[in-house]
């Protein structure tokens, strides 16, 4: 099957049905490995056992940002090629990205209280991630407000591309401004600053979270294709109903 064939919603639906059980299985396995490594990870010499929060906080943060990047690529597909599958991909990402960003904010707050002495500060990193979460809610609200899916897709795509400016702000906020948040310690020039005993469980959990993201995304895309099918069939039903002008 050529890659272009997947752009056909019906073929995509068939492929999603076949792939989902396998993806779900691999995700469960990855979480089993990740949680096992997390359980065995040593305490940090400064932070003690609270470093275990890092294993869910950091992957959630990465995926919160990755979700918006994915939506931005889908937005280009919507605006440039006007492809319905790009609309579906963008719409399906928003609630998943919002959920991971929410997990990032809550776990960061719960990590901050014992380490910084406060749940929240209005510094650049925390505030820019909160803005990302609010933008996700805005995109979800937009999709729910505009009834026509193609019009909603175009409006959401524009908002998504404008909001993409926040991604480099989040990434470099710890370099550009003074903040309580620590600077990048995994993805940085010069290699990771985290000891291997903590880095390996972190990467294992990142793989598990990423697989979960793709599993949920595929399932949500499948749902949205079905939702469009229901909408089309309902419109057709309304046209052939007795008393309609069709």
């Amino acid at each position: 099957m050529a890659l272009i064939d997947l752009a056909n919603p019906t073929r995509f639906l068939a492929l999603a049905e076949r792939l989902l059980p396998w993806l779900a299985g691999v995700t469960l396995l990855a979480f089993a490995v990740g949680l096992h490594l997390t359980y065995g990870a040593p305490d940090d010499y400064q932070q003690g056992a609270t470093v275990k929060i890092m294993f869910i906080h950091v992957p959630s943060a990465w995926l919160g940002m990755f979700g918006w990047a994915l939506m931005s690529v889908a937005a280009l597909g919507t605006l440039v090629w006007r492809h319905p599958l790009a609309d579906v991909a963008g719409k399906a990402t928003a609630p998943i990205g919002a959920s991971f960003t929410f997990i990032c904010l809550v776990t960061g707050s719960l990590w901050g209280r014992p380490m910084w002495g406060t749940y929240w500060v209005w510094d650049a990193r925390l505030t820019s991630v909160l803005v990302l979460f609010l933008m996700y809610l805005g995109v979800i609200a937009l999709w729910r407000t505009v009834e026509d899916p193609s019009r909603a897709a175009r409006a959401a795509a524009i908002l998504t591309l404008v909001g993409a400016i926040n991604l480099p702000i989040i990434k470099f906020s710890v370099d550009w401004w003074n903040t309580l948040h620590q600077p990048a310690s995994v993805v940085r020039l010069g290699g990771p600053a985290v000891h291997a005993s903590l880095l390996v469980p972190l990467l294992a959990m990142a793989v598990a979270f990423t697989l979960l993201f793709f599993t949920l995304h595929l399932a949500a895309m499948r749902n949205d294709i079905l939702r469009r099918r229901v909408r089309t069939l309902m419109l057709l039903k309304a046209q052939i109903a007795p008393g309609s002008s069709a």
Partner: protein
Amino acid sequence: MNLGPHAAFIWWAYGVALAVVLGLIAWIALDYRVLRRQVGELEGERITRRSVQAPRQST
């Protein structure tokens, strides 16, 4: 497992993450069941694009 003096923060962090992920999975699964049933019902009524085309007049 000894999580030290801040164990409650660690448990809450993992608990919230689990609740959000399970909520997301449940929402997507329930949504799928509802949509699948709706598609099944509508397709059972044999509604197709052809069924709404106006009949052509023969000349």
